[in-house]
């Protein structure tokens, strides 16, 4: 019989490389095309991010491409119809853009702040941010504020690198890996690749998570922690380490501010600030010379512990002394922490001592000559092979910033930052703590902002508030309510704009964000707010523009809909100026190229932005004569320079593509990327790969290529003088801006601890914790991306309904049966959902998969889709505002320091639904279909060629035994 099948005809096929965007991980893909259809999407083996593998989402790109929910035309809300009724009429791109540009022109000429431009899952914030800056509005941010700014901020103010996408565990060398609150994260494939590597090498993998699924399933040890208490767990481990002198003296003295002296003058100005000399250099006590010396110079021998008196009689203590005093307090002892975290004291102590053993007794060395910032030569990199990764389990709490700082504190004590086997930065990180960029404050008609809308405040002077201390940004970022809100507070925009607090706006643009549904807190009320009108009968948010590719719940509320292309239909630059795809050993960036012709009247939003920038005459986009400088997006990316020689793409710069990282613009740059499978990878020489915060050659190079403004060493800040300044302002001891409102004063004093600390999550501290006995959290399903994938015919077969998962024993004790329907109630509202029992769930925690619930009629789904009838969103329970307290204005339900949305602070009570009460509640009216869209098909038989059947000979049929 014929043994070989007749294979498919490769001659009819075409292979193109590009970058996946089924999620933010941005893996390299090879797309096989047949008759302008996608035959197969495969991971690009050579790509630094995914090294050939592809996740479930990436493998389902075909079904995204053929989604019936794709937008087809620009649309305008039908005149005379209500917002949210979903009645649209198609308009031409010219009409749509004329309409929008005219409106924006007026705003820009009068009060640019009246345009609010907020973006969601995009990875092109460098461009949208630049656009906003050029427009002149401070009301821009991406989704970071409701995503994980706590991680970014904690890291960047403390270590110069951070979790999230900005650093990686050293998968190839680490021997002990601790994963805090991560179900999936942005590095979807890299984390999976890494976990397999370390398990194969026999490293220990400890998972700290109230739920055991996914990554936690393969962990060697699972610690079911009570949500919101990780900060305490980490600080208790710090207690164990310090109390046994298990910390890296050299690391602390050389690379951190641990030996810096802190002024001790409680109740007086300057209390808690670092002791400095005339040039403002931080001082240390030198044990040899017995005097105060500039702590930044080398060759000295600062004492790590000690209390001293200055000439003017002020008492000063080293940071490390303050730390010892603070963390050795019984409050942080394992016995005390156990009560808070629900983790046995023995376990806390054991984990800390295990890490110490690996860090100090299982040290590794990488032989390689390198030079530290003082010019001292070393013949090897010392590695302390303990690593950690953490994400939203930490960040999505109102104590997330301090909790994340507590994790970094552990890393620093163990000396595992950017060393072999530790936590390694990805270019452009490490950066200075923090990078010297101040958020823009002042706006003026027809003038770009002096600096980017987002930056890193160093002191109250840097807040974006007016003379009376009122917030200037619509989201109140950088106000007393959220002083270092480095990514803005996207989750507050609609509420604040509708309340006209701090002021009303005119036009709100949402790009790639589903803010009327899964991406907003309090979804149902937010939908009402979007419909809200003032006495004048005008909408409180006068004009809502939604830039999206699919028929989302938010599109339904738009006054103007601008349809985007899919990721297979457009050019994109994934830039190092933006969220990096770099690897620890190699700065990287990448592009997307269109592999398919759009079959609809859609345009890439970046093209539209460049186009509008030209029409509106943004200085950076027009020539002297005021004519558009760029022919389009690709031309802009190739020619625009941030600083001489530095642009969006780092590869193949210079006239002939001869210079990398920095060089003159190259007209053929895109082509070069396409030839190189759409990515650029710069391999750092080995001696620049570790200890980069103090690595002379690296620091010089990083300045040269524009990562950092200076080549000064990066000092890790265990003690945050920035926070202390805000605390002083709260105490009324700061000579500079100070809050007037007692509420603000108290919050600054309570939460801006200069040393990492733990406090009860804010919502929990305001409700009856016994009544609302359960913590309610979410997890990302590995095979679905937020709201996008319910339109995906393959992925929704895996999950079209979510359940409320509960600890089996606990549920049985409460008489709640498996698969029964229950009411879940928070201080903000109630929902009806279906329960599923499981073992792997901490007793006081319930959870569900994120963003599975859908509004009926959205996403090209039938109105009776399980997503709408039995699936649900927890968002209805989560308020964007804290429970009210008397004598206090309503406050955002966010981290009081960074403004990070506190999604996982949610506490709920659960009661069985009455017999017959089935189906999820609240129910929403089914959304109308869009003009020009067909009925979704009742059956799919996707294929790009007839199957090549493998025949069995009839002879074989008859003769085989």
């Amino acid at each position, binding site marked *: 019989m014929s043994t070989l099948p007749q294979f498919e005809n490769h001659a009819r096929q075409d292979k193109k490389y590009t970058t996946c965007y089924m999620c933010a991980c941005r893996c390299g893909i090879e797309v096989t095309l047949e008759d302008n259809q996608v035959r197969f999407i495969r991971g690009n083996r050579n790509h630094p991010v995914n090294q050939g593998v592809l996740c479930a989402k990436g493998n389902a790109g075909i079904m995204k491409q053929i989604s019936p929910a794709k937008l087809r035309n620009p649309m305008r809300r039908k005149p005379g119809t209500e917002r949210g009724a979903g009645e649209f009429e198609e308009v031409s791109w010219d009409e749509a853009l004329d309409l929008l540009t005219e409106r924006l022109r007026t705003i820009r000429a009068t009060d640019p702040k009246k345009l609010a431009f907020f973006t969601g899952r995009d990875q092109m914030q460098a461009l949208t941010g630049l656009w906003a800056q050029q427009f002149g509005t401070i009301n821009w941010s991406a989704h970071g504020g409701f995503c994980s700014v706590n991680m970014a901020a904690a890291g960047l103010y403390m270590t110069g690198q951070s979790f999230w996408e900005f650093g990686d565990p050293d998968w190839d060398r680490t021997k002990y890996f601790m994963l805090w609150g991560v179900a999936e994260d942005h590095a979807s494939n890299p984390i999976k690749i890494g976990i397999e590597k370390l398990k194969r090498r026999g490293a220990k993998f400890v998972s700290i998570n109230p739920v055991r*699924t996914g990554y936690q399933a393969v962990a060697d040890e699972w610690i079911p922690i009570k949500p919101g208490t990780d900060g305490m767990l980490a600080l208790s481990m710090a207690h164990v380490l310090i*109390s046994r002198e298990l910390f890296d003296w050299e690391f602390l003295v050389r690379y951190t501010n641990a030996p810096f002296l802190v002024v001790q003058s409680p109740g007086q100005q300057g209390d808690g600030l670092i002791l400095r000399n005339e040039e403002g250099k931080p001082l240390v006590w030198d044990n040899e010379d017995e005097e105060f010396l500039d702590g930044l110079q080398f060759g000295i021998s600062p004492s*790590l512990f000690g209390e001293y008196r200055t000439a003017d009689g002020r008492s000063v203590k080293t940071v490390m002394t303050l730390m010892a005093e603070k963390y050795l307090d019984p409050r942080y002892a394992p016995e005390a922490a156990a009560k808070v975290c629900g983790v046995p004291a023995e376990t806390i102590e054991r984990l800390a001592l295990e890490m110490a053993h690996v860090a100090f007794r299982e040290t590794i060395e990488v032989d390689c000559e390198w030079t530290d910032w003082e010019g001292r030569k070393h013949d090897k990199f010392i590695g302390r092979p303990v690593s950690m990764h953490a994400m939203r389990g930490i960040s999505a709490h109102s104590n997330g910033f301090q909790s994340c700082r507590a994790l970094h504190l552990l890393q620093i004590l163990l000396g595992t930052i950017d060393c072999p086997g530790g936590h390694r930065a990805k270019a452009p990180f490490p950066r200075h703590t923090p990078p010297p960029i101040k958020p823009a404050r002042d706006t003026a008609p027809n003038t770009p902002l002096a600096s980017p809308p987002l930056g890193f405040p160093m002191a109250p002077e840097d807040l974006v508030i007016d003379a009376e201390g009122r917030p200037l940004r619509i989201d109140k970022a950088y106000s007393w309510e959220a002083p270092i809100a480095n990514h803005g507070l996207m989750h507050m925009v609609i509420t604040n704009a509708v309340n006209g607090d701090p002021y009303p706006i005119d036009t709100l643009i949402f790009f790639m964000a589903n803010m009327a549904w899964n991406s907003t807190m309090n979804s149902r009320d937010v939908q009402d707010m979007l419909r809200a009108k003032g006495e004048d009968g005008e909408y409180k948010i006068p004009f809502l523009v939604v830039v999206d590719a699919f028929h989302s719940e938010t599109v339904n509320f738009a006054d103007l809909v601008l349809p985007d292309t899919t990721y297979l239909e457009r050019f994109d630059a994934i830039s190092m100026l933006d969220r990096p795809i770099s690897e620890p050993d190699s700065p990287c960036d990448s592009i997307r190229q269109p592999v398919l012709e759009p079959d609809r009247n859609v345009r890439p939003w970046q093209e539209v932005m460049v186009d509008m920038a030209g029409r509106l005459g943004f200085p950076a986009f027009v020539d002297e004569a005021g004519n558009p400088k760029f022919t389009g997006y690709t031309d802009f990316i190739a020619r625009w320079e941030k600083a001489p020689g530095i642009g969006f793409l780092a590869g193949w710069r210079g006239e002939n593509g001869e210079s990398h990282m920095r060089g003159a613009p190259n007209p053929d740059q895109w082509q070069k990327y396409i030839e190189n499978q759409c990515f650029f990878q710069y391999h750092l020489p080995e001696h620049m790969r570790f200890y980069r915060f103090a690595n002379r050659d690296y620091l010089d190079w990083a300045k040269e290529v524009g990562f950092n403004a200076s080549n000064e060493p990066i000092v890790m800040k265990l003690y945050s003088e920035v926070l202390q300044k805000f605390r002083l302002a709260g105490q009324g001891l700061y000579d500079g801006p100070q809050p007037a409102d007692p509420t603000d004063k108290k919050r600054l004093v309570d939460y801006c601890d200069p040393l990492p600390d733990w406090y009860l999550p804010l919502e929990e501290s305001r409700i009856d914790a016994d009544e609302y006995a359960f913590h309610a959290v979410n997890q990302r399903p590995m095979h679905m991306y937020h709201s996008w994938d319910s339109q995906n015919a393959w992925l929704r077969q895996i999950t079209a309904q979510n359940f409320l998962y509960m600890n089996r024993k606990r549920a049985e004790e409460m008489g709640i049966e498996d698969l029964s329907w229950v009411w879940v109630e928070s201080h903000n509202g109630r929902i009806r959902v279906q329960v599923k029992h499981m073992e792997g769930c901490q007793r006081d925690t319930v959870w569900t998969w994120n963003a599975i619930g859908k509004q009926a009629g959205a996403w090209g789904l039938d109105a009776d889709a399980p997503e709408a009838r039995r699936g649900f969103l927890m968002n209805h329970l989560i308020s964007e505002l804290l429970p009210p307290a008397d004598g206090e204005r309503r406050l955002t339900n966010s981290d009081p320091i960074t403004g990070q949305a506190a999604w996982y602070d949610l506490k709920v009570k659960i009661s069985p639904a009455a017999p017959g009460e089935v189906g999820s509640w609240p129910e929403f009216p089914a959304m109308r279909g869009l003009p020009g869209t067909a009925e979704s098909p009742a059956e799919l038989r996707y294929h*790009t060629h007839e199957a090549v059947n493998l025949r069995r000979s009839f002879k074989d049929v008859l003769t085989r035994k």
Partner: protein
Amino acid sequence: MRLGLVIDLDTCVGCHACAVACKQWNSSGTTGPLTDYDPYGAEPSGVWFNRIRNFEVGDYPNNKTVNFPMSCMHCETAECVTVCPTGASYKREEDGIVLVDQDKCMGCNYCAWACPYGARELDESSGTMKKCTLCVDRIYDEELPKEERKPACVLTCPTHARFFGDLDDPDTEVSRLVRERGGFQSMPELGYNPTNHYLPPRPTRPVEQERRPQISLQEKIKEWMGRVVEK
């Protein structure tokens, strides 16, 4: 030759990538399309060759979650083939791959009844039985680069939990893994002798604790003050 898969339960995180990659490749391939029913409606369902289920072993808090991918095991004693009256189902002599000749199948479901592992699914729209082909149209396709001549599910697995090879040859990676990691078969008692094997979770590496005496704060600070560390 006895080609099959070895799946590592120690690293499988249950991400479904292999299942969707399989769906994607085989939507054309040798038995495609794999029909999807009611894809945007109340009961989305369809034909898959590879499904991932999650189990929990033990009671809280001593529970472990296990992700368990299942596709055709290409059994040595493939009863699905024995019972097939038309001869549509057959096991290739040369490599042991079990296939369904789509031109011969009459859609009686009998083979599915005989399969303990739920590896066979009827395509209602073609009226024929479909199943994992071990990507026979990839592994032998000389026009594909050598390293790509593997099943789609194996190539895509982000945790490299899937291995493909000849379990007859003791020197292959798959045979070695089964030997060294105590690979096992599902429901061996049924005597189908599945070619696919599963690798059990690895035992946890014991980590020593760093033992140091604990002394009081005052003493410590005193002791620590003035310790010289070169900066």
